[in-house]
């Protein structure tokens, strides 16, 4: 075999050599924890890449499959001693895999779907209106209305029936707080995140631009997301977001916290609910949205948060990120089961999170494990705890 410098064009050729083999990444990797062989952990995979660079290993299907067995959960990047941005590294390796036509079929399907239908599930733009069912009266004046705040539910929330309530809850909160908001409805397209996970960097900016064009034409200053990955993708890949700083991209909890600070939300006493907040990987390790959800939960009377181990920056992945849920759904589900096991050792009866993928992963794991617990988005918890207007829940002090 000959030497291959396939990383040079991405400027990543030094990284496999920079790896100190300290093993920090491997011990936090959800894939390694499940498959337990080093060659599936980040340290092992880096060494395989090194052996390919040196002409000793083969860049084949087996390697491609290993690289796609990864949640891109940012945990290895977070703990790396020598500061290797491993997630970025796996993404460029995936880009090379795509170029060489070695993509796993399910990942290729997602890629094709995003390109041709604008979403991850081969649906269509009209389907993005389905979540508005039953609240047509409330939202009809909001669609493409010029406003300061835009709500971007993202593909999962807009298109998957079990997550529609997340979007409806956000609308309820915005209505309650009398926020001047707008919805992109069928003009919304995928944020482009799955393209990055599948190694297609060329088209991400285009996807982001499509959305941004609509958003900017409405005079929006703040975009609220139900999915942290959308924010990460725009921050990393959208030329506009990188160059202009006048658009605030907020997670649901960051936005709700802002409303609370402005005293625009009031809560009703809840009947002693113990919850545990599962930090989604991206919001905790990339967006640093760690304290906001906890402060929101603390603000709701009668709701108590207990911490899981590990949590916050050290949170464990739910298993659904980075296309693993389509490439190896069984492995993905096993990882989610492990995280649910962390919940079962706390007194919590409910898991609250702020990422639609985590909710989907946990719902599936609940089914496979038989654990009885409620899985909720922070938006849903807030929306159902709001003090009814008739009981003085208006915005006046």
């Amino acid at each position: 075999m000959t030497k291959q410098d396939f990383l040079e064009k991405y400027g990543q050729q030094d990284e496999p050599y920079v790896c100190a083999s300290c093993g920090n990444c491997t011990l936090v990797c959800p894939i390694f924890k499940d498959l337990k062989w080093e060659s599936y952990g980040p340290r092992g995979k880096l060494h395989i890449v090194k052996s390919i660079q040196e002409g000793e290993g083969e860049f084949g299907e087996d390697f491609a499959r290993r690289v796609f067995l990864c949640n891109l959960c940012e945990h290895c990047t977070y703990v790396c001693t020598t500061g290797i941005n491993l997630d970025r590294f796996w993404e460029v390796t995936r880009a090379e895999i795509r170029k060489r036509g070695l993509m796993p079929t399910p990942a290729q399907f997602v890629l094709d779907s995003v390109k041709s239908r604008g979403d991850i599930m081969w649906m269509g733009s009209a389907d993005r209106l389905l979540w508005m069912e039953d609240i047509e009266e409330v939202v009809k004046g909001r669609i493409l209305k010029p406003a300061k705040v835009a709500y971007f539910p993202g593909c999962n929330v807009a298109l998957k029936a079990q997550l529609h309530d997340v979007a409806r809850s956000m609308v309820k909160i915005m209505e309650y707080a009398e926020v001047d908001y707008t919805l992109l409805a069928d003009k919304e397209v995928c944020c482009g995140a799955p393209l990055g996970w599948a190694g297609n960097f060329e088209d991400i900016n285009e996807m982001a631009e499509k959305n941004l064009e609509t958003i900017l034409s409405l005079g929006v200053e703040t975009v609220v997301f139900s999915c942290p990955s959308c924010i990460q993708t725009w921050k990393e890949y959208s030329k506009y977001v990188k160059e202009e700083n006048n658009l605030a991209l907020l997670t649901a909890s960051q936005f709700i916290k802002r409303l609370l600070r402005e005293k625009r939300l009031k809560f009703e006493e809840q009947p002693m609910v113990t919850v545990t907040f599962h930090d989604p990987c991206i919001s905790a390790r990339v967006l640093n949205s760690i304290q906001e959800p906890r402060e929101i939960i603390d603000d709701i009377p009668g709701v108590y948060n207990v911490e899981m181990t590990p949590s916050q920056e050290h949170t464990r992945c739910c298993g659904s990120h980075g296309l693993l849920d389509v490439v190896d759904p069984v492995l993905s589900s096993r990882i989610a089961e492990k995280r649910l096991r962390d919940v079962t050792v706390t007194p919590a009866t409910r898991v609250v999170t702020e990422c639609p993928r985590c909710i989907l992963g946990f719902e599936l794991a609940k089914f496979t494990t038989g654990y009885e617990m409620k899985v909720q988005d922070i938006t849903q918890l807030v929306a159902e705890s709001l003090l009814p207007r008739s009981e003085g829940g208006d915005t006046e002090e």
Partner: protein
Amino acid sequence: MRVGDIVGADNVSVTRETCMMYSRDVTSLPDLAYQIVSPKFDIITQPVDVPSLQNLVWYAIDNNIPLVPRGNGTSGWGGAIPTRAGICVDVSELNKILYFNEYEESVTVEAGITWRDLLSFLERLGFTLPVYPSSATAATVGGFVASGGLGIGSTKHGDILKQVKGIEAILPNGKVVRLGQVHLNPQEDTLLEKAEKGTKWLSDVLSDMGLGTPEQESKLITGTYGTLGIITKVTLKTIPNLQLIPFACSFESMDDLVDVASKILADVQPYFLRFLADNYTSKLHTLRNLELEEGKYILSGALLNTIYQNEDDIEVIKELTQKSEGTLLDDNRAWFYWSERLYPLRIKRHGPSLVPAEMLAPLEMLPEILNRTKNELKKSKVAIEGTLSNDGTTSFMVWILDDERNRFSFTIGWYRSFQIASLAEQFGGLPYAVGLWNSRHAREYYGDQSFENLKKMKKKLDPHNLLNPVKVFGGRVTPGKISLTAGFMVGFVVALMTFMFGPALLGIDWLVQLLNSSLFLTLPNYVLVSLIGGVLGIVVIKAMTLNQALAIGIPLLRIASKILRK
């Protein structure tokens, strides 16, 4: 029977990638190293319980297969890499916490648990460990106990081996033994009978050989890199997690730093003291533009004591630092250095490859050793740091930064690691660790008598040298194709030359005449003699021990490096 039948099919791997990955530690070895040790294990196993591990040992004995125990491969001295291929025993699946008793101040764990997991368990209960390694985030308890050394906490509590109350191990003959005090819950102790039998057998053997004090018994397994037994359980001391106060001081010179450090050690007895030399701090990216720290000598450490004691001690440290014209850094910086204690490899990005070298040296010699090292390695990029112990010694870690992609230069530069070990001798120090690469210094490291005892026991317990072969005690090399070819070539040429010119040079006339006669002066004879020489060359290479190979190779590398390396 196959290995999968013994440890479970899911716990065995023979794939190329897995074998490659488990066959290395944190050091990138030059290709030349694989001319004296084998590059890969044949089989990787992850036993999940002691009985299956015991069966694996018996299987290895029956089939004459080398066994190498491995934690998470976070050391750099080759203690867990293959020397004669064989089976890698990854103990990381044995990772349970078995027993904790706050009154006895002890915790018993399986060998494969990481120090990080054990620390987070203890800290939740208000306890911590007297000593843990700087690689605690990934290193296993078994790995550090098997290799020994200084760590976080050694400044107050000394070597890790002093913190071990007892161990359970599987001897090279498959017997389970418990040495020292291994605390376990009696109702969960399924191996008690087996272990008692094994321990009695070992005691008898030791007394027969005149070696049998309990202290010597536990020294057998701890600090000997798994050459005399695979550690399966460890009982460690614990200490109350009192108030932790990190501190950091910066100095203009190493002399000032050592002066203050010795006074702090005498007056305060801190939990941890570490020094970072100027060439280390100048490479820490996060220190960029910090006037008081970048390129300065930093002494960082921590106090772990009662609030009142800490208040007094920090004042003492402040006073001592000011007297020596040092600067006591603020709390933020102190906490930064405290968290950095677990990431000494940060500077690797400047390499991108790293050749580690480390020695144990007397504290007062530090400035001189530092100058000498800087001088010896002036053509290399180095970063130096170390940890201070409570016995007046300090570890002196030299990270030599290089680029393994420049294969030739990297290979001939490999001698520098050994050079530091030799430097230690000159200053009355010792190599920090033995493992594989420093087995030449094993006698000085363990002490004459102890090493002799260990050798006797190795012979008795592991006559075929199957458990972690070649480590600590040395042994024959596993030659690669290049070294065999080189042996053949040298033998060939030497035989040819001897045949042609030897008798004439030695003045043996009758032999010269005989050889010059038409009977001998034929091409087939020349070829035959040269071939015999070549074969003898191969035999010599195969019979060579690792220490002999290193004794020949290191000076050659040094000469090559002086001539060829820029």
